[in-house]
């Protein structure tokens, strides 16, 4: 069986068009990130989070009323998983675990005829949240630098740059989509350690497709020394297209399974990675390879110009 036979799609020639598309998608994502952002999870926000399961369904309004009575009217209250399960989160800080004790005892006394079971209870002090936020930023930047250095060393510095621009693109697009789709409660998207894990994994995985294409470009450069660079890159992408799509396809397939069948906790993770994998596959062609082409062409032009300048005869006095 074979999905894709021999292709000869002119990818690189259309790169300007796809640059524009990428820019538009990233811009839309950035706007959403700026105006809506991604709700911070308890890890980064600090505060208290309680997830409870009621025996019978309750309305969010009732729970909110109960919370308002203990001065936590501003807390975030939403269903989690099934309708009987409610998540209550507040950034309010108090000594020790007072807030979660308050929340659970209030719920138990308010809903006397509805048995309350506490599924999960988390308290994160304000300093821990701040520490994690800083660490998370460093971690993402560090991973991008490591990729830049590794790809730069294994191939050429330009390739490293192309790969990292593509990665940056993937992370931005994924963050943008996460921000837009954080409105869908089912997906459970919030900025927490799990989402950060998804972003880093994405950095590791999305570079895979890029490496496959780069590897083929390197090989073809040795075989076809005289070939035009654009044609050569195009040939390389076409030759590896089938495997690029299948490897990304299998990964996306398991991620969809994880999203639909897996636990609520990993849903946001799966969603982010699905977006990341799709973007990663696209960007290995239209961003990473295209940037390498543009840089190489620019350098060739510059070299030719210099050559021309040198060849010009020195005017006689």
């Amino acid at each position: 069986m074979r999905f894709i036979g021999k292709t000869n799609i002119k990818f690189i020639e259309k790169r300007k068009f796809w640059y524009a598309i990428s820019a538009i998608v990233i811009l839309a994502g950035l706007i959403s990130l700026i105006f809506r952002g991604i709700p911070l999870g308890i890890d980064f926000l600090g505060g208290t989070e309680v997830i409870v399961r009621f025996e019978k369904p309750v309305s969010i309004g009732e729970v909110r009323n109960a919370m308002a009575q203990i001065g936590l009217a501003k807390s975030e209250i939403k269903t989690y998983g099934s309708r009987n399960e409610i998540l209550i989160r507040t950034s309010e800080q108090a000594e020790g675990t007072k807030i979660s004790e308050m929340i659970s005892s209030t719920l138990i006394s308010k809903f006397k005829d509805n048995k309350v079971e506490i599924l999960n209870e988390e308290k994160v002090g304000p300093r821990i949240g701040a520490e994690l936020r800083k660490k998370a930023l460093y971690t993402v930047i560090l991973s991008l630098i490591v990729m830049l250095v590794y790809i730069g060393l294994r191939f050429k510095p330009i390739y490293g740059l192309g790969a990292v621009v593509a990665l940056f693109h993937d992370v931005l697009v994924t963050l943008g989509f996460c921000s837009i789709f954080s409105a869908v409660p089912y997906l459970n998207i919030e900025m927490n350690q799990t989402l950060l894990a998804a972003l880093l994994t994405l950095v590791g995985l999305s570079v895979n497709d890029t490496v496959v294409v780069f590897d083929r470009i390197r090989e073809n450069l040795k075989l076809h020394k005289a070939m035009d660079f654009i044609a050569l890159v195009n040939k390389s992408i076409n030759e590896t297209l089938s495997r690029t799509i299948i490897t990304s396809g299998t990964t996306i397939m398991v991620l969809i399974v994880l999203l639909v069948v897996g636990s609520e906790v990993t849903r946001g993770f799966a969603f982010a990675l699905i977006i990341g994998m799709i973007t990663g596959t696209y960007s290995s062609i239209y961003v990473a390879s295209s940037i390498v082409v543009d840089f190489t062409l620019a350098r060739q032009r510059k070299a030719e110009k210099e050559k021309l300048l040198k060849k010009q005869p020195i005017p006689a006095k």
Partner: protein
Amino acid sequence: MKKNRWKIILIIISIAGALWYLYPTYKDIQYQKKLSELKGEDSLKFVQQNIDDIQKVKQKRIKLGLDLQGGMYVALEVDVVKMLDNLAKNKDETFRQILAEVKKEALVSEEPATSILLRKFQEKGIRLSRYYGDIRQSDAEIISELEKQAEDAVDRALEVIRNRVDKYGVAEPSIHKQGANRIIVELPGVKNREEVRQLLQSTAVLEFKLLKPVDVTIKVMQSIDNYLAGKGISDTTDTSQVALKSDTTKKDTIKTIASELGVDTATAGLDEFEKFKKEHPFFAYVRVDEQTGIGFVNARDRRIVEYILSRPDVKNLIPPDFEFVWSAKPFTAQDGNQYYNLLAVKKDPEITGKVITEARATIDPENNLPIVIMRMNSEGAREWARITGANINRHIAIILDGTAYSWPVVRTKIIGGSSQIEGLDSPEEARLLEIVLKAGALPAPLEIIEERTVGPSLGEDSIQKGLNAALLAFALITLFMIVYYSTSGIVANLALILNIGFILAVLAGFNATLTLPGIAGIILTIGVAVDANVLIYERIREELSVGRTLRSAIDEGYSKAFSAIFDSNITTFLTGLILYNFGAGPIQGFALTIMIGILANLFSAIFITKVLYDILAEKYQAVIKFG
């Protein structure tokens, strides 16, 4: 075949190794199943019979993270601001004002509270010696002393918490220090949050209790023994048979007991031991030193003895002013087994640790042996003189939260409140005793700065959902590979199965923890693992299409695809490594499975399948198809 001989041997060894590491997990699941069927005495008996094996497999099985089995994660931090408040003297309005500012800043700043304090004082031009230490000390000296105090408080709290958690009976707790003044406590399977918070935060109780006289102790133990054996309480047993002759050191005592009873080592003595156990159900587990009345219990029998002592009918046999306490740490006897001491003490303490003003582990200048010097306040010193005077040559146990750390003998009447505790085995033991003696008064309370509790039902839910997702993902991928690559798909699937087996085996072998994100990592690995095979097969298809023979196409496919596979796996591995260093528990579990998955993948998807193809290509070429 011949050129692959060593490779085949390596593969067989690694598969056998994986099975070896996975077996305890399988066995533990079997035991758990069995135990959930049994009830009450039956389950205790079953545990007793198989205790060694149950404990062994439990230790060697794949550990489940708190997010999967439910439990509590608590990070505690010394409340340095409160400590600064407690330690200050001559507190006035200026001090309170400065401390309030320090408190406000310390809440959000990463700067240590002590250095914030120093800065505030310097800004105002006030010397620290106005409130701390004495007038001759410089600011730097005082600050370093305060920092030492904070760190001391952490060590103390660590010991107190360890002791309490041990007694609370949590299976596989993890308690460790993080940085200078944080303690991380992980308690799997714990349900009662309130109790645990109490356990972690309440002030420790340090007491000095007199050991009961030997004859009383042995009499009580005998009545328990007789009762358990079904004899009348008044029945007198020949004490010489059970209470062994006391030797000079405890280690020798144990040796004679062990060899006399032949408990663990000699199988020949086992029947004799069984007979002895029937007649003396209590003394079979608790051996007593005739001179001191101190009991010795093999560490693995401790639970059984605890159970016996907790039975209400047995409790009735223990006089009201009488109490059994365990020693804090087991010691290793000459027979190689670990033993706990069981002490019989007077229930009412002679004095509590509140009177202790100082405790210091040091070296006796006369003989270079470790000692601990303890000082008491004047009120305590008066009491202490009376107590020691009245109990010369008797043991007084130092008991923290109900666990005995030391039971020195009173030599003389101690006047003036300064005592010296000798006969310690090592400087570490002395240091521990110092910590314990200081624990009575906590100048620096601990605050919970992070707490995560996962209810057991959420954990079960997560495991079930994770398992379902993993099975479905596996089914889809294997089906796809077979449909797309025909028989070669089967080879790739075989590699995938081995890959998952290797991941789990490595997790078990390295004592790592499987978390919910870890399961997600395994699921992701299922999707990514076939990548290597896809890259190789596509390459082989390409080589076949340019007219190569099957054999050379396979060789070319493997060698040409390798660099791309290697590079892409390394990049993922590197991000895994970075993530591992960033994250806490669950995320580390994810990073770990990803990293192990990559290594296992390089081995199974490239190495093992290549050997398989070599064998197939030589003997059964017709079966090899690439779709």
